[in-house]
């Protein structure tokens, strides 16, 4: 009886558990650099009380929220502060159209498909100063930004031509949700994953159909489209699980977090039956090693000093441990774990003209710590962090999977795992 009384009073997002302690505001990267944003306590639980009375109390400043979720990580009372803020934004945007700029930035797959076709032209043109100036003034995409280079060949094209055939020869199988970045910008990351998984005896397969996970659609208010794509993805992940008995691996922390946690909380898509089957590749591989199901053999005389940056969504999932520990298995790896600070890009946020300065101010603490770490490169699980850190520090940034693939002695690993 007593227990029931308490649980019945609980509302969504642990809203009532907020004790007004302000811890969230102290870790908010946006509130740290601007007084225009009232901070997560005010924007979240405090403001929600007013909004519940009258939606007109919605404060436009909420669009400054990065959705980095650091407030939720710090909250000692388990309040889903960022979800409260994002849901409020969602309600306030109902019936409103997103701008052309936001629609373009959000449609990473559409942009990628077009750009792939004309990759050399697109890369050159997008990099030209006049183009940047036009984008800056007409589209409000900041002129300091360079669009990530587009690849000539999509990952899926490469995969079908060069890898698909042999995948059935392995005894165990996984599906790979490659995401837009791997497909259009950086197929090498997908190739690196195939290389590692094949070496430990896993065949890699594409989903029957994959669409952009929609993280940028949600951030830019295109909820209807995000929902459609989310349904397609979850249906195909479900097929992979039920028909093929394959878990679905990813190499992007943001796609992973979005499909596991934002689909139900932001889009109302029920993923409970498949959520555990969506896994980050580093976590999947770490667990196999930890359970002594596979062995990884590394190249001799490998020596690198890298800094690991915990992406905000990685921290929200609490999975940085897997990537870090996996990299630390490499003999000769000198890995510096950076203090967990936001890089400021937050997907498409930093691309927008009105956010550029704030974005760089937020990232400055991280950039300074990278400089102090004296490393040859940075490693992180998020592609947009990669763009931001590369632009702001000049250092190359690699996904842990690529670092691992580079350090791996593929032949020796195959032998150690009994793969022909």
């Amino acid at each position, binding site marked *: 009886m007593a227990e029931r009384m308490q649980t019945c009073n609980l509302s969504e997002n642990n809203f009532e558990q907020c004790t007004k302690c*302000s811890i969230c505001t102290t870790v908010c990267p946006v509130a740290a650099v601007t007084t225009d944003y009232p*901070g997560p306590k005010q924007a979240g639980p405090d403001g929600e009380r007013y909004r519940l009375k009258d939606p007109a109390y919605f404060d436009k400043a909420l669009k400054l929220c990065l959705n980095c979720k650091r407030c*939720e*990580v710090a909250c000692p009372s388990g309040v889903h502060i960022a979800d409260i803020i994002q849901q409020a934004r969602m309600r306030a945007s109902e019936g409103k159209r997103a701008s052309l700029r936001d629609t373009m930035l959000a449609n990473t797959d559409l942009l990628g498909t077009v750009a792939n076709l004309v990759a050399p032209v697109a890369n050159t043109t997008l990099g030209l100063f006049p183009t940047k100036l036009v984008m800056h003034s007409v589209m409000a995409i900041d002129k300091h930004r360079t669009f990530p280079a587009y690849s000539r060949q999509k990952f899926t094209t490469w995969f079908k031509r060069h890898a698909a055939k042999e995948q059935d020869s392995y005894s165990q199988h996984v599906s790979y949700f490659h995401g837009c970045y791997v497909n259009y910008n950086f197929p090498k990351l997908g190739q690196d994953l195939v290389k590692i998984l094949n070496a430990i005896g896993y065949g890699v397969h594409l989903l029957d159909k994959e669409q952009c996970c929609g993280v940028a659609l949600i951030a830019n208010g295109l909820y209807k489209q995000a929902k459609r794509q989310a349904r397609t993805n979850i249906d195909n992940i479900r097929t992979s699980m039920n028909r093929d008995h394959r878990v679905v691996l990813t190499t992007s922390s943001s796609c992973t977090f979005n499909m596991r946690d934002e689909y139900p909380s932001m889009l109302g898509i029920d993923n409970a039956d498949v959520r555990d089957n969506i896994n980050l590749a580093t976590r999947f591989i770490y667990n196999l090693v930890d359970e002594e199901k596979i062995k990884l053999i590394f190249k001799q005389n490998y020596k690198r000093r890298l800094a690991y940056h915990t992406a905000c969504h990685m921290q929200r999932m*609490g999975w940085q441990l897997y990537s870090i520990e996996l990299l630390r298995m490499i003999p000769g790896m000198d890995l510096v774990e950076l203090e967990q600070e936001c890089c400021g890009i937050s997907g498409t946020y930093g691309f927008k003209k009105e956010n550029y300065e704030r974005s760089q101010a937020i990232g400055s603490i991280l950039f300074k710590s990278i400089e102090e770490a004296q490393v040859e490169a940075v490693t992180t699980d998020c592609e947009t962090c990669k763009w931001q850190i590369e632009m702001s520090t000049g250092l190359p940034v690699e996904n842990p999977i690529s670092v691992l693939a580079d350090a791996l002695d593929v032949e020796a690993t195959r032998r150690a795992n009994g793969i022909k």
Partner: protein
Amino acid sequence: MRMDTVIMGGGLSGLACGISLAKRGKRVTIVASGQSTMFFNGGSMELLGCVNDKTVENPLEAIASLPESHPYHKVGVDRIASIAERVKLLFSDSGIDMTGSANANHWRITPMGIAKPAWLTLNDHLRIDDLNQLPAKRLALMCIRGYFDQPNSMLAEGLRNLGFEVDMIEFTTDDITALRRSPSEMRATSLAKHLVSNNALQRIADQFNNLAENADMVLMPSVFGQSDSSDFQTLQARTNKPLRLVATLPPSVAGMRMMKQLRHYFKMLGGTYLMGDTALSGTFDGDRLTSITTAKLADMPLKADNFVLATGSFISRGLKADFERVYEPILGVDVDADADPEQWTRFGVLQPQAYFGYGVATDNQLRCLKQGKPIQNLRAIGSVLSGHDAVKMGDGTGVSLLTAIAAADQIRENK
């Protein structure tokens, strides 16, 4: 994943224990669900402030007279002095500069202007060694316009009662005025984040030098230094008078800074700190704990030779109560608490409350009891322990730190 030691709880106690073990080359993981109560700490540590309603002058002497159930007895009364010295070392190694002595309490000043006995206080905060010899005669109490987390009149009155002459001086600068745009969020921590540039600090120093001419010491709220004391030092160098900080209402910049420094040092020693994850349950094998699960690592249990429970008291959810019982929610270990809910509280907020003394039951080695039997490799430290009362006795941070080091020693000795 296998560790030497897994610590549940990433507050003061968990970090002190983790640092102590990591320093000896042990692989340590700390599971920390959100920030801790250090967020409310005013820049001081206390060993023992009050016994039987009497203010303690010499904590080391007074500790011997505590009842056997007090956690200090489990640390070992004869070892307290040496462990207290090691705590000071641990702080200075982490870059935290504090002064004080275990055999002579000094006085710290609360945000309300009350002098309370303390063991260690941050060097940039106001500390009074002897109430008959105040460090200054006339204080300029600088009040930031629009900042509400310092009750200035009460603070001034309290300081006057101690014998200071106090001038309350309101001031502001352009940088501070800009922050008033979000009045509800103009907190110590936001001030500390925005008042970092040399120019911003110079503008404050200019105000001090203009307005506080008649004072021998400038006192201002503790709103500087989110990661170290360099901002304070810059300000001091540009201010003509000696400058001291005084604790504010939470959020406390000093407390957050100390946590950041301890966490940084722990990581430097190779420790793993899982921020924002929560220990959920444990698996026992006879009288040993073999692994725990966490909310985020889900299918991967954390295995270890030793475990430490440093989850804090009710406010941190290390202890929970429903309408019928008080319990420890993760491992279900035994709790010292009155069975009858009527006994838990007493009418009147300022009355001593029985529940303050509730906590996890341990043997004389700080090992948790489960159904009366000690779990060989599970120790409890800090506020989750029974038998002490941070509010009434002023022993909260002392118990956290001393039991943390003692548990680390026991883990090593039992190896």
